[in-house]
């Protein structure tokens, strides 16, 4: 177990290193270009050369990568071209905002989708199962950008119940959170619910469930003690992977509702070629994704005694 965890973490660090190298190459390989991006298209050739020299761009590649990585690890991401401040000053508050958004989404979505999935999978082919299955396909089929528009049309322009933007200009407002969270839940819950349903339905056909029923156990105990534990192993991994998906989802939602989060920052940065912000955001995103993946793997192992004790 301990070996497995250290292996996973080792692999995680390795992945981060490779990703950082890729990013570094992708965004900085043409030095002239970087200078243009930083100093703007109207800067003089001399100024660009000077900037490049000052920032060590004529050092060997590995040296530059080393320094860049060193700075990166110690939290020095460079300066944002657009905001004219160190990247970390913009990044951390934005990340915090996104974390709040993600927290509420997960807090509602996971119980909801697990319950619906288990109910549907418990009796495969029943009316409830069909309603939940088809319902979850439909919600998953409406892309986030479409549901933002549709939901705004209903709740903002039609019923006028909710605000159309979530910029939180006058402090935190729960009302402004409702629509973004709703959009993320609607798009994502169907996937988790369907995975849970499939897993539950599969478990219900196994021989050990038959054994449990033929042992004369009450149905409730068959479900709660024998089925659930096995059925929730697979969805656990899926839920952790949802964090990765959520990072994509927030980009659209934050963009539409003008929510000052991490996704909107990344999008803005890439539209404005704000390379240091892109690098930092991408690294953070990959870190979150890889970390959640690592936790998912470790958790899967822990939940599954067949792997835990072998």
């Amino acid at each position: 177990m301990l070996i497995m965890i250290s292996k996973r973490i080792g692999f995680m660090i390795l992945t981060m290193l490779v990703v950082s190298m890729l990013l570094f190459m992708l965004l900085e390989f043409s030095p002239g270009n970087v200078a243009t991006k930083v100093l703007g298209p109207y800067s003089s050739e001399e100024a660009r050369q000077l900037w490049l020299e000052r920032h060590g761009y004529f050092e060997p590649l590995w040296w530059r990568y080393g320094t860049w990585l060193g700075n990166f690890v110690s939290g020095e991401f460079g300066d944002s071209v657009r905001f004219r401040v160190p990247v970390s000053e913009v990044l951390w508050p934005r990340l915090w905002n996104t974390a709040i958004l993600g927290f509420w989404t997960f807090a509602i979505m996971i119980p909801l989708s697990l319950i619906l999935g288990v109910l549907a999978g418990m009796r495969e082919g029943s009316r409830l199962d069909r309603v939940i299955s088809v319902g979850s396909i439909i919600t998953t089929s409406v892309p986030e950008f479409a549901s933002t528009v549709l939901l705004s049309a209903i709740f903002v322009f039609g019923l006028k119940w909710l605000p159309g933007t979530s910029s939180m200009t006058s402090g935190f407002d729960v009302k402004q959170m409702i629509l973004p969270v709703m959009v993320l839940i609607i798009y994502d819950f169907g996937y988790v619910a369907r995975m849970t349903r499939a897993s539950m339905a599969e478990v219900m056909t196994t021989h050990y469930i038959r054994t449990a029923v033929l042992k004369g156990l009450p149905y409730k105990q068959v479900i709660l003690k024998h089925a659930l534990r096995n059925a929730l192993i697979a969805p656990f991994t899926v839920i952790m992977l949802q964090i990765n998906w959520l990072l994509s989802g927030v980009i659209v939602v934050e963009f539409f509702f003008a929510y000052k989060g991490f996704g909107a920052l990344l999008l803005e940065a890439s539209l404005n070629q704000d390379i240091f912000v892109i690098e930092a955001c991408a690294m953070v995103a990959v870190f979150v994704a890889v970390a959640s993946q690592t936790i998912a793997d470790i958790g899967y192992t822990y939940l599954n005694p067949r792997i835990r004790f072998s």
Partner: protein
Amino acid sequence: MSNIVETVTPAPTLGFAFIRAIKSFALLRESTPGMVGAGLVLFWVIVAILAPLIAPFDPLATLQPMAKPGTEFVKGGTFWLGTDHLGRDILSRIIFGSQTVLFYAPLATVFAYTLGILMGLAAGYHLGWWDIVLSRISDIILSFPVLVLYIIIIATIGSSGINIIIAITFASAPGIMRIVRGLVLDLRNREYVAAAQTRGESSLYIMLVEILPNARGPLIVDACLRLGYVIITIGVLGFLGLGLPPPDPDWGGMINETRKMAMIFPHMTIFPCIAISSLILGFNLLADGLREVSLRD
């Protein structure tokens, strides 16, 4: 006797595969969601093919700005779904937009599948170094949040039709590779594969003739799901302003251009939303139906 030889000697050919694909689609009758899905997809395919014939107006022509749905056009005809802020007929734009999406999405999916299948076959059949290298590459690509990856790629190489296909191929192939690899890991232990090995078949023959055709079931289902997802991706890129350059009609782009006016003119955004959602729903239901049918026998 000899005519039997001619008709049956070739091993699985494209023709055979096609006939069997038709047969398995015929089985779809058993699944109501699957039929609805197939219907939706077919509807949009027909619309895309017949676009020049059925579209009432030129999708790019500025006719009458901000007309509400049902408005009569002075020069004849009706704006059934209204016009946008530039005065272009929304119905015609949606009809021609289906061409765009049904051109780029399947093309990107086919490229992604070709790459993913080759990677998956190589990794799953040879194992060893092939597997380690290819799997690690996939893991790294997959560890990016998808949209972050697209944004970075598009931000680097710029936004155009070809670049979108490249980005989708690059980002989807690892996922397909994982699925193919899993299927191959199972299939490579079949006795008929051992039989092929013991008669000295080449690895390429075993991968393409003995293994791949038997993995087609799950792959077809996955392809339908993925097609839906690629449509979402193209839509999202359009919505974020990273999609196909204007003025060609693109559903995601249409939503993005008009969303700020949704307060006053909801029809401009709602109809493209319904169009794209229905097509995605079609592919998702189709995938679900196919999976259901394939599990039955």
